[in-house]
């Protein structure tokens, strides 16, 4: 018999290494020939979109297009360390470091503009489309390109920035403290169909809401939500390392099953924006959180459908049939 059930899962997740551990990101910004801006930063692109979103943050501070920003990364001889691409920390931590470095760069650019245009001060200067302009007397202006002509070779113009996340160690006795900041929240609802004759669980519908503080790039964010959902789905229904005596028995894709395109369904993704005051333009990472509420939502939906609580993952057809028999 086929039975339908609905379930929800909700989670919150602390960004970064946490628990008072020094969690530092650094960046150097340089004015490059032709007036482009270079970000020198250890941020690693692993498919999460760092290459795009880090440039977007810099472009926002410096009033440039993303195409005018070059990211030089993943080469430890050329740039400062920005920690690991892990713990959902790059958007928040390294995004902050890049924003701070770009703000310092802006101060630097304003100082040099004051000299180049023989101004009394840097007051009233604004950045717009690759130019530094005296807002209330726009005849006074100089482009990044012109500044790059003056400051080249030995005299290269650069600024750096650093961000250290604020967390405190938990008290060993009481467990109290502020071990993480910021937190990210999400909620997922699914509808499943459980076949009580075969033990097969089919997803019918899903809605997934993810708090991102501020979506630097909504398209990339949705992609990560889809990906996290698929991983959560695999975790709940298929993926099993099958460890015996310390050895992984399912060590190939013919045994370790991950979702294919046919196992996935279209998801209604909702991005919730509630800017975080300590984050770059309010943006928090979502890399890991997007996986967390999916399996609980699926298990709750199975319970809703057939009244059986599953306590071990993955819910393979065999396990589900056994659980149904035992509960009868």
């Amino acid at each position, binding site marked *: 018999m086929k039975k339908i059930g609905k379930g929800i899962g909700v989670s919150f997740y602390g960004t970064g290494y946490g628990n008072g551990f020094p969690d530092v990101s650094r960046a150097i910004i340089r004015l490059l020939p032709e007036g482009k801006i270079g970000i020198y930063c250890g941020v690693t692109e*692993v498919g999460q979109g760092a290459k795009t979103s880090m440039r977007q943050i810099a472009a926002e501070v410096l009033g440039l297009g993303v195409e005018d920003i070059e990211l030089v990364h993943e080469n430890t001889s050329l740039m400062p360390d920005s920690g690991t691409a892990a713990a959902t920390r790059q958007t928040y931590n390294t995004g902050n470091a890049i924003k701070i470095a770009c703000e310092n760069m802006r101060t630097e650019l304003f100082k040099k503009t004051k000299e180049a245009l023989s101004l009394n001060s840097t007051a009233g200067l604004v950045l717009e489309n690759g130019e530094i302009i005296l807002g209330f007397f726009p005849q006074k202006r100089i482009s990044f390109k012109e500044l790059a002509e003056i400051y080249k070779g030995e005299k290269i113009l650069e600024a750096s920035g650093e961000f250290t996340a604020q967390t405190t160690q938990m008290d060993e006795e009481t467990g109290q403290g502020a071990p993480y900041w910021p937190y990210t929240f999400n909620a997922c609802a699914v509808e499943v169909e459980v076949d009580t004759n075969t033990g097969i669980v089919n997803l019918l519908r899903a809605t997934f809401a993810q708090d991102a503080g501020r979506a630097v790039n909504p398209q990339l964010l*949705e992609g990560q939500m889809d990906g996290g959902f698929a991983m959560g789905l695999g975790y709940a229904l298929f993926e099993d390392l099958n460890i015996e005596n310390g050895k992984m028995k399912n060590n190939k894709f013919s045994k370790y099953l991950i979702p294919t395109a046919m196992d996935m369904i279209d998801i209604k993704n909702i991005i919730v924006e509630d800017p975080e005051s300590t984050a770059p333009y309010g943006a928090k990472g979502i890399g890991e959180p997007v996986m967390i509420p999916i399996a609980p939502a699926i298990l709750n939906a199975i319970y809703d459908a057939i009244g059986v609580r599953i306590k071990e993952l993955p819910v393979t057809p065999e396990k589900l049939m056994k659980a149904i028999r035992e509960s009868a």
Partner: protein
Amino acid sequence: MVNIGLTVNQKLFEISVDENLRLIDLLRDKLGFHGTKEGCGEGECGACTVIMDGETVNSCLVMAFQANGSNITTIEGMEKDGKLHPIQQAYIDAGAVQCGFCIPGMVLSTKALLDKNSHPNRDEIREGISGNLCRCTGYNKMLDATEMAIKYMEEEKE
């Protein structure tokens, strides 16, 4: 060693290969088409997908000598005159690429699907790329990309 001749991306190659050389090694190591990726090496992941005489094959499971006389397209053969194929462009525009490892195979499976069925629905697209595993994207943006590519290709015809 056996002498074989095959066409890869419209170019004829004549080469002498070991009997136990796999097509993926011929493509990557001998002919330099590094876009073809090896994931599992046992026909499960689809990362090594190429199009051989109109059909997708896992190039890790095909022996090089079996490709004698065949016509092969790898990811390098998709762009024309320095311009990306509409499917490649659509993958970029739809945000369907994350780490990228599955993408060459995925794009070729999408091409093989659209060559046979120019207007697949979403379920047919799911089926068409179901031999290609992706750990990152959850596939949905690839479906969006395929629908976008269909539009791009129609616009190109006009």
